[in-house]
Each structure stands twice: as structure tokens, then as C-alpha cells.
């Protein structure tokens, strides 16, 4: 059941920010609604205090994709369908397009938005690992002003970010990726369509002959929230991409995941899968 709520439709971003500022914690922006409405339906504790929904789905300021500063700015309320279809994102940030194409179903992708996905910050949010390896930065606006922050800092813990009640994520910036990086996104769900991810990995590698010049690694669903692995990345830089070393790296990824999550009932299955998949991804990318 959807509770008694007040629905507000601001005409522009400024009005939306005023509404959020006025209503505070009892208000929540709604765009695609693909997390909020099911949340209402199952009477999720996370959504029980909402009294007012501020519909931001059609605000022109946050529904565009534009090229600037060598990279791409994606509006917070851009849908996954728009991301999948966008030639520039497909060309320059293919892992994001790839992850977006595997989210939910056509119906979900037609409504669900990029900022909605990571502001909800479920452990399994599929857009997060690719955004993290692309060093995405978020723009957060409120009546108090504007701030910019790396996504990795913005995300705090499961279902928690640094977003304050009067704030909204207006844009995500994907900086230019230095030449030579190649990567892959991997998703494992119980089935292909409408699947909650069990494992996601995003890996970007820059090779210099046989040497790993630079590497970026992120996981989702197997870590409390989507996250990078800076120690592992530092350890791999400058090493030769031989099978033995890649295996060692995969083993360590599994160990670090275990450290972050603790032992789970599913660890006996997931850890060897993560390690094997990661090893195979590295083999393909480093070829």
C-alpha cells in the first residue's frame, strides 16, 4: 500500500530545492520511483517517514547528458535507458552502458535513474562499480550551495550516503579516461532478467607491454557497498601480468572481500566464484 502522501511537482530545480529545504526530513525526491514505490509496498522502514514526494523526474536541469571538460556530465534523473542509448557513454564509458543495460528489465530501465541507484545505495546497486572505476564525481545542490565530491566518499554505508535531506544530486561527472585503459564489467544474478546482483565487478587496466601500468578495481554486492580496492591496485601497479601474479591478485581480492564483509552463509560459494571470475577478467583484459 502506498501511504497517504503529498505530491509536489516543482517546475524547475530551484523550486525543487526550496521544497526540500522547507519540508526537510519528511520529504523525499522521487524520479523513477522504482525503489520508493516497492519500498512503500513492503512497508520498508527506510521509507516510513516520508510524507511528501517531490517529483524531480522531468526537471530539465537534471535530465540531460552533456559533454564538457573532456568528460561527460550525466544529470541525476537521467534514466538507464537513456544511458544505454547514449553514443558518447557507449563509446567512452562502455562499462557504465554495459551495467545499465543489465539493470532490472526494460520497464525498470525506462524509469530508474542513475542518481536514484546510488543514492539508494543498496549493496547491489549495479551502476556503482563502473562509476567508481571511472572516478565519478557527484554534484550535490541545495539552497545552501553546491558541492562536488568523489562518489567513493559520497557513499557511506548500505542505504546511506552523505546526502542531506535538503540536498539533491544534480549531476554525475565522468572525467576523461587516460588513453590505453581497457575494462570489463561483470554481473552475476540468479537469472539474467530482473535479477538482484549477487556479484558485480568492474575492472579497468592500462597495460604497458606486459606490465600493468595502472589498474582500477571495484566490486558490488559482495562488499557492504560498492567499493574500490586501493591496496590491491597499488600492489598490482608495475607488475608483469603473468598468470601466477594474476592468480595471486585474485586470491587476495577474495581475502579482502572476506575481511570487509565477514564470513557469510554464502561465502563458501561466492568467494571462489569472485576469485575465478576476477582472474578470468584480468586474463582477458591484460592479453
Amino acid at each position: 500500500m502506498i501511504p497517504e502522501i503529498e505530491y509536489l511537482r516543482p517546475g524547475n530545480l530551484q523550486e525543487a530545492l526550496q521544497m526540500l529545504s522547507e519540508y526537510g526530513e519528511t520529504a523525499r525526491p522521487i524520479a523513477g520511483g522504482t525503489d520508493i514505490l516497492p519500498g512503500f509496498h513492503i512497508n520498508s522502514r527506510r521509507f516510513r517517514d516520508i510524507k511528501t514526494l517531490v517529483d524531480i523526474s522531468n526537471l530539465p536541469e537534471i535530465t540531460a547528458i552533456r559533454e564538457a571538460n573532456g568528460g561527460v556530465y550525466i544529470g541525476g534523473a537521467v534514466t538507464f535507458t537513456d544511458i544505454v542509448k547514449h553514443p558518447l557513454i557507449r563509446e567512452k564509458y562502455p562499462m557504465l552502458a554495459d551495467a545499465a543495460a543489465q539493470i532490472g528489465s526494460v520497464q525498470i530501465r525506462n524509469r530508474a535513474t542513475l542518481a536514484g541507484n546510488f543514492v539508494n545505495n543498496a549493496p547491489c546497486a549495479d551502476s556503482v562499480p563502473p562509476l567508481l572505476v571511472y572516478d565519478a564525481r557527484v554534484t550535490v545542490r541545495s539552497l545552501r550551495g553546491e558541492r562536488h565530491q568523489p562518489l567513493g566518499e559520497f557513499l557511506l554505508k548500505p542505504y546511506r550516503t552523505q546526502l542531506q535531506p535538503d540536498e539533491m544530486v544534480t549531476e554525475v561527472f565522468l572525467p576523461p579516461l587516460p588513453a590505453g585503459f581497457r575494462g570489463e564489467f561483470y554481473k552475476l544474478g540468479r537469472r539474467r532478467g530482473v535479477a538482484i546482483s549477487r556479484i558485480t565487478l568492474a575492472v579497468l587496466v592500462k597495460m604497458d607491454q606486459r606490465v600493468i601500468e595502472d589498474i582500477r578495481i571495484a566490486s558490488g554486492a559482495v562488499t557492504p557497498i560498492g567499493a574500490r580496492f586501493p591496496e590491491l591496485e597499488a600492489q598490482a601497479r608495475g607488475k608483469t601480468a603473468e598468470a601466477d601474479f594474476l592468480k595471486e591478485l585474485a586470491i587476495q581480492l577474495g581475502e579482502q572481500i572476506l575481511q570487509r564483509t565477514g564470513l557469510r552463509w554464502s561465502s563458501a560459494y561466492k568467494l571462489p566464484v569472485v576469485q575465478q571470475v576476477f582472474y578470468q577478467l584480468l586474463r582477458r583484459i591484460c592479453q
Partner: protein
Amino acid sequence: MKEISIHFTVNGKKVSLNVPSRKRLLDVLREDLGLTGTKEGCDVGECGACTVVMNGRAVHSCLVLAAQADGAEILTVEGLAQNGELYPLQKNFLEYGAVQCGFCIPGMLMSSYALIQENPHPGEEEIKEAIAGNLCRCTGYKQIIQAVEATVKR
């Protein structure tokens, strides 16, 4: 009760009504407009039974607030047939035995319709992707896919 006034087009007809702001598009279609072809299934965006086409895109009407459909063009399964004649997709669903219990069919039709509008000649994989968000527990999908293929074959 908090109400909101909405104006939108449903199956080519302009509709204006006042609805409680907590109502979903699905509720308004079924309860206020009597368009019960659109089915209520899981209510959480997993089964696809409530799929309608909104501004050319397939959406779950259970995950759209009616207020969010203000100004939109909505097509439901009732809007497919023209002048008493079934839409080719519907004819082929019958022809290929794609309908058993029938509960998923309006959603299947609307997902397939949205696909064909955007991509008039989809391949089998594209058809499967388009209906991946629609659950059918009777047919095993094969006849549904065949019916869509027959519709797009020239």
C-alpha cells in the same frame, strides 16, 4: 485525503480527473477508468503484468504515481485493437497459442508493442530482452516469442 488533478491521454482519449495523490497509474486505470485489461500482479516491478506504454516506453504502471503521468500519453491493452479489429500482435498471440491463463498477456503485448514501435524488425534476442521483465508461468515463453516473431516478419 490529499488530491491532485491530472490530465492525460489514455488510448487516444483525453482524460481529466482528480485522484488521491497516493494512487498509482495502475489504480487509476483499473478503478477510475475501468480499464481492467492492465493487471495487478506483484506490485513491486518484478512480474510485468501491469505494463503499459507511457510516452512510447514500456513502464510498470504499479511503479508510476498517477500524478507522474500528468501530461503523458498512455496506451493500454484496450487501445491496441482498432475499429473492432485486433492488432496484428494480438492476432498472432491467438494464432500461435501464446495465451493460456492469460494473466500476463496484456503486459506481454504492451512490452512487445513498445519494442516493435522502436525497432520494427527485432531479432529473437531483442524480443527476449524486451519481454524479460514479463513473467509467464504457463507457456514457457516459446509461443509468445513465436507470435512476436511472426508479427515482425515481412
